[in-house]
C-alpha cells in the first residue's frame, strides 16, 4: 500500500529527473514530461520529428539520468534482424572443438534507443516486436528474457521523408505513446545555439536507478480514479471504431481503423502517472485529455475522407474528445452521407 513516503519519493525523483534532463535539453517541456510519464508507466516510446530537433539527444539524456545500461541501434535499410537481437556464432574452444554461442545483440539492454526506426525494413522492425511486448528474445529454439526495466525508445522521421518504411500497425500499437517533437521556437533556438556554443557534451547526471523506477511505477498504479473517468476512457477508445453502431458519425467519416484496448490501458496508466507528477492523488479529465494525443495518434488510421480533407490524427482526436465529453455536437448523418 502506498504511503506518504512513497509519494514524497515519487515527487522528489520526478523533480530531480526533470532538473537533470533540462541541463541537456532546451524547451520541449511537454515532450520531456510525457517521455518520463511513458517510462514510469513502463511503456515504450516513439518519438517523431524532423532531423535535428533533439530526439536522439533527449533519449541519450534519459539514458544518462537513469543509471541503467543503454544501447543504441541505428536503423538503416540494410540492418538485419540478427543485428538487433543477436545471433549464434561459431566459436573454437581451447580444446579445439567448435561450438555455437549466442552473441546477444544491442537489444539486450535496459534502455534501447532505436534510432530512425522507420529506415529499417519491416522484417528488421518486427525483430523488435517480441522484445517490446514480451520482454523476451527468441533466437533459434532458445528464448532469452530481457532484464527489467526494459524500454525501447524509438525515433522516426516523419513519413513524408524518402527512403522510409512506415511501421506496421502491430508494432506501433506496442508503443505506449508517440510524441511529436516540434521545431523549437526562436527563443529556444537561440538558447540551443548558445548552449551548444559552450559545449556539445551531455551534462545530465544519473539520479534514478532501475529499482527507483519500478518503485515509482508501483506507486503510480495506486492513484485513485473515479468510475466516471474509466467509463470516459472506454467511451473514448470505443468512439475511434467506425464499425461500432453507436460510434459518432465523425468517426464513421474520418477514421478507418480505431485504437485497440491497449490504448485504454495505456491511457489510464499514463494518466495516473501524470496526476501524481502534478501533485494530485487522483486522475482528472485534464490528464486523460492531455494524454489522449500521444496514446491515440499512432493507433488510429485515417480514412480517405480524412486524407483528402487533410485532417491530422491530432485534429480528429481533439474532435472526438469534445464529442464524447458532450461539449460539441457530432456531425449529422446527412452531412456524413452527402460528403460520402
Amino acid at each position: 500500500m502506498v504511503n506518504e513516503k512513497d509519494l514524497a519519493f515519487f515527487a522528489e525523483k520526478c523533480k530531480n529527473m526533470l532538473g537533470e534532463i533540462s541541463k541537456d535539453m532546451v524547451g520541449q517541456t511537454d515532450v520531456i514530461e510525457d517521455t518520463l510519464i511513458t517510462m514510469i508507466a513502463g511503456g515504450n516510446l516513439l518519438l517523431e520529428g524532423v532531423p535535428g530537433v533533439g530526439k536522439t539527444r533527449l533519449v541519450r539524456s534519459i539514458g544518462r539520468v537513469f543509471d541503467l545500461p543503454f544501447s543504441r541501434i541505428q536503423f538503416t535499410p540494410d540492418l538485419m534482424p540478427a543485428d538487433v537481437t543477436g545471433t549464434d556464432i561459431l566459436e573454437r574452444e581451447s580444446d579445439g572443438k567448435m561450438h555455437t554461442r549466442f552473441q546477444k545483440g544491442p537489444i539486450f539492454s535496459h534502455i534501447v534507443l532505436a534510432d530512425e526506426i522507420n529506415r529499417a525494413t519491416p522484417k528488421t522492425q518486427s525483430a523488435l516486436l517480441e522484445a517490446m511486448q514480451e520482454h523476451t528474445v527468441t533466437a533459434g529454439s532458445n528464448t532469452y528474457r530481457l532484464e527489467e526495466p526494459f524500454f525501447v525508445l524509438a525515433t522516426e522521421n516523419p513519413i513524408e521523408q524518402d527512403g522510409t518504411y512506415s511501421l506496421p500497425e502491430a508494432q506501433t500499437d506496442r508503443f505506449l505513446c508517440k510524441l511529436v517533437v516540434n521545431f523549437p521556437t526562436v527563443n529556444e533556438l537561440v538558447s540551443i545555439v548558445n548552449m551548444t556554443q559552450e559545449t556539445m557534451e551531455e551534462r545530465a547526471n544519473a539520479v534514478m536507478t532501475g529499482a527507483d523506477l519500478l518503485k515509482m511505477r508501483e506507486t503510480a498504479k495506486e492513484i485513485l480514479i473515479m468510475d466516471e473517468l474509466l467509463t470516459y476512457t472506454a467511451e473514448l477508445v470505443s468512439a475511434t471504431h467506425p464499425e461500432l453502431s453507436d460510434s459518432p458519425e465523425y468517426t464513421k467519416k474520418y477514421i478507418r481503423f480505431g485504437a485497440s484496448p491497449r490504448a485504454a490501458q495505456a491511457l489510464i496508466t499514463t494518466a495516473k502517472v501524470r496526476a501524481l507528477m502534478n501533485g494530485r492523488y487522483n486522475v482528472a479529465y485534464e490528464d486523460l485529455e492531455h494524454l489522449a494525443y500521444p496514446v491515440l495518434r499512432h493507433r488510429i488510421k485515417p480514412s480517405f475522407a480524412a486524407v483528402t480533407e487533410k485532417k491530422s490524427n491530432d485534429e480528429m482526436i481533439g474532435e472526438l474528445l469534445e464529442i464524447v465529453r458532450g461539449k460539441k455536437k457530432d456531425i449529422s448523418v446527412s452531412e456524413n452521407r452527402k460528403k460520402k
Partner: protein
Amino acid sequence: MDRKLFRRFRIRLLGEALFRSSVFALCAASIGLCLLSFVFHCLTQKMSILLGAAVFGGIFILAFCICFFGKLYPTVRRTAARVDEAGLKERIGTMVAFSHADSELVRLQRKDAVEKLGRLQTKEMPHHYRRKDFVFALLCLLLAGGMLILPYDLFSFRTIADSDDETKRQEQVVNELLSRLREEVKENDYAEDLRRELEDMIDDLEEKLQESRNELDRTANIDEAEDRVSEAAHDQNSREDIGEALMEQETTKKLGEAIQSGDKEAIHEALEEMQEEVLKDREQADKLAEDLEKALKKSGVHKNDPLRKGLQELADELKDADKKSDGDVKEDFKQAEEKISDALREQEELAEKLKKLQEMLEKAKDDLLQREEEQTSGEGEESSGEGENSGEGDPTSGEGSSGEGEGSSGEGDPTSGEGEGDPTSGEGEGKQQGEDGDDGGHGAGTGDSGYRYDPMIEPFYDPISGRVSYGKVIDAYYMEYLKAVERGEISIEMQKVMEKYYAGLME
C-alpha cells in the same frame, strides 16, 4: 463523508436547479397550452380560461418535478462534479467516490481535496445557465400567448370551406342588419336605460353572429335577439300590468279595462265616472286614492313609468280632494286623463319602434334562408313547369299563394297543425310552415311558381289529402339539427337556444 463541506455549494446549486427547472417547466407548459389551444382552434371551440390555466398549471408542476428531482437536484455527486469544474480537477468527485474506502492514499487525497475545497469561493463555482434556454422559454410563452389571443376559428377547416359565396352573402346580410339596427337605435329617441339595453342586445348579437358558423346558428341568434326586443317591448308596455292590477279592485276596474285595451274613449268614460263619484261624495276620494296606490304597487311597474306617474299624481290629488273645489277636482281628472293618454301614446309609439326592430331581425332571418329558398325554388320551378305542362293547377292562384308561401314571414296559421295546400290549386304550403315563417317558402303546390321542391317536406306530402304534416316536417328539421349537434357544428350555448326554439315550435 461530511455533507457540511458542500452546504454552501449545494445551496447555490439548489437555487440554480429551481430556476432552471422553472424555465424548463415554463417551456413545457407553454408548448402544452399551445397544442391544446391549437386543437380547440381546429374544433372551432373556445377554450375556457379555467381549462387553459389547469392544463398550464398541471404540465408546469409535472415538468418541474421531473426536471428538478430527476435531473437537476443537487445530490452529493452532482455537487462534487460542479465544484470540480471550478478547477479542482476531480478532487472532490474522487473524494466522494472513495468516501467509503480507507487507505492512506485515500486519506491523503481526501485531505488534499478538503483543503482545496476550503479555499474555493462559492462564486467561483461555474453556473450552467444558458442564454438559449431563456430565449426558448420566452418564445414558447409568446407562442402560447399568441395562440390564446388569436381568433379561435383561424385554423378551422370549416373556415376554409366556408369562405365561399354563400358564407359571404350571409355575412353581408348580418353586417347590414347590425348597421341598420345601430342606426335605428341611434336615430330614435329612447329612454336611456332602454337605449343601453338595445345597444347591449346589438353588441351581444354581433358577438354571437361572429361565432356562428352556419345559417342555423345565425337564425337562432337572431331569434334570441328578437326575444330580447320583445321582452324590452313588454317591459315598456306598462299598461298591461297596470290595467290588470287596476281591474282587481271594484273602484278602479273599469279604468283598468280601459287602460288595458288602450281605448281613449273608454278611459275618458271611466275617469268621468270616477270623477262623478268623487264629486258626489268626497270621502270616496280617499278610498279611490288608496285603491289606485294599491294597484300601482301591485303592478310592479317602475315609479318613473309615465303611466304610473300619471295615476300616482291623480291618487295624490285625490287625497286632498275634500279640500278642493269641484272645479279643482275636475281639473285634476282632466290632467290625469291627459297624462294617461300621453303615456299610452308614448307606449304605442315605442311599441311601433320596437316592432320595426323586430321586423328588421325577421327580414334578416328570411334573407339568410333565402339561398335555400332559391335552391328549392329552382327545383320548384322545374316541377311547376311540369305541372303546367300537365295541365294541373292554376298558374295565377299558384303564383299568388306561392307568393305567400315564399315570403311567408309570420303569415302562417299557427293553429293549423297540418298543411292545407291543394297542389292543384297551387296554394303555397309556406303559410302553414310555422308561426314565424322560418320555413317559409317551402311551398308544395304544383302551380306555376307556387311549388318549390323541398327534400325535407317531400317525404311527408300526402298526395291524396294534399296535405303536409307540419309536425313531421318540424321533426325532420329537428333530426337534422340533432345530426348537426353530433357532428359538433353547433356550440353548447347555441344548443340551448335551439332546444328552446324547437320546443316552442312543437308546442
